[in-house]
């Protein structure tokens, strides 16, 4: 029997959770073999909404579900934004509108398998950033590429999931780049609880996972520090922010009095897997490229 899901007015990483609840069971399997998503109420789509919704669609398709879209006859601004991201081209085979094309201020919505993620960073994300910012981003802020690699390595090592979705938008007036990456893997709380042998609440599990050295040892070579590095680089070095959502927990990381401040939240619904939203401040990126020099042990 087909399930009709009416998408929310504002589609973002929190509003999507209600849609996910209608489609995904608590056991991590689809609730329905056929789902129809109704776009008629959508008036605004945020970058994280693109990423999370794409992840949901890909997950349903992977399970062999039939997915359809309704309420797309009228090209609203919200639909145009989604169409320009190439969302509909990805799932319908063509854009809704003839004039729809990737905006200068965004990248194309990406579905990335393990063997193509790092090439995507080099060949798609960084060139786009370089064009937007007018600098060699990796040369001026290598920490940013490193952070993306930390996220991808975490997905590869811990999620048990092959495909991740990614999308980014540049906000020139806000001096910010927002990048979100999502997978529907096992999620951070699952791995942390398995490691600790303790039913720690999801928000605190996520906070535990970003501590230096904490590793769930999903692989023997894991030693922790991936998520810690991500948070330290973005928050303390760049003065940006990081939001991590996984299961029914959310952790916001931002600069508070010169150090990383952590704010854990419980969510009313469940996000299977993990979504990471990085807001990179572009006005704090160093004007000069990094210099290569020598190394010395500092202890």
């Amino acid at each position, binding site marked *: 029997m087909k399930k009709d899901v009416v998408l929310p007015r504002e589609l973002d990483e929190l509003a999507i959770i209600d849609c996910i609840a209608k489609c995904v069971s608590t056991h991590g399997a689809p609730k329905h073999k056929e789902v129809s998503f109704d776009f008629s109420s959508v008036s605004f789509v945020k970058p994280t909404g693109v990423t999370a919704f794409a992840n949901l669609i890909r997950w349903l398709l992977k399970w062999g579900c039939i997915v359809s879209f309704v309420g797309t006859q009228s090209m609203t601004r919200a639909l145009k934004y989604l169409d320009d991201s190439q969302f509909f081209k990805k799932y319908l085979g063509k854009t809704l509108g003839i004039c729809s094309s990737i905006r200068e201020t965004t990248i194309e919505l990406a579905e990335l398998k393990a063997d193509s993620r790092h090439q995507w960073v080099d060949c798609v994300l960084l060139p786009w950033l370089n064009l937007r910012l007018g600098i060699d981003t990796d040369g001026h802020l*290598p920490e940013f*590429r490193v952070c993306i690699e*930390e996220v991808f390595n975490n997905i*590869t090592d811990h999620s048990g999931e092959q495909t991740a979705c990614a999308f980014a938008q540049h906000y020139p007036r806000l001096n910010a780049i927002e990048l979100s990456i999502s997978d529907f893997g096992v999620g951070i709380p699952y791995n942390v609880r398995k490691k600790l042998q303790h039913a720690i609440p999801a928000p605190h599990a996520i906070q535990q996972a970003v501590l230096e050295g904490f590793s769930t040892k999903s692989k023997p070579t894991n030693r922790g*520090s991936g998520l810690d590095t991500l948070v330290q680089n973005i928050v303390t070095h760049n003065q940006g922010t990081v939001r991590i959502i996984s299961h029914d927990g959310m952790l916001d990381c931002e600069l508070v009095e010169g150090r990383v401040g952590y704010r854990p939240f419980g969510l009313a619904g469940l996000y299977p897997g993990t979504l990471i939203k990085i807001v990179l401040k572009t006005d704090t990126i160093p004007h000069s490229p*990094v210099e290569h*020099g020598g*190394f010395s042990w500092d*202890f």
Partner: protein
Amino acid sequence: MGFLKVLDFVERCSTNEDGAIIYKEILSHIERGQKVTVSFSGVNGVPTSFVNSAFIELLERFPFDKIKEMLMFVDTTHQINDVINRRFRYEVSKVCAPSRPECCRVSQ
């Protein structure tokens, strides 16, 4: 003395697998009693997965003092210096816990 430019062995320094390749090269030098210099020419930054697999893994075979003696890095950036020092500092401090003074590998 051996010299190893990482980009001669891997396309990028991004993953555990990339690090494992570098680790094997370093190990072959150290096991022969040869000091080795690792060059990061062309690399602006490295994630912890790479550092863990390429260098931290050496702590499973050698004490830290030996690694400091045999392994050098050149053509690094501030980010690379920071992540290598931070990872080693953390792993060595775990080994030298007060409860295990006999395991201390860091010379005072």
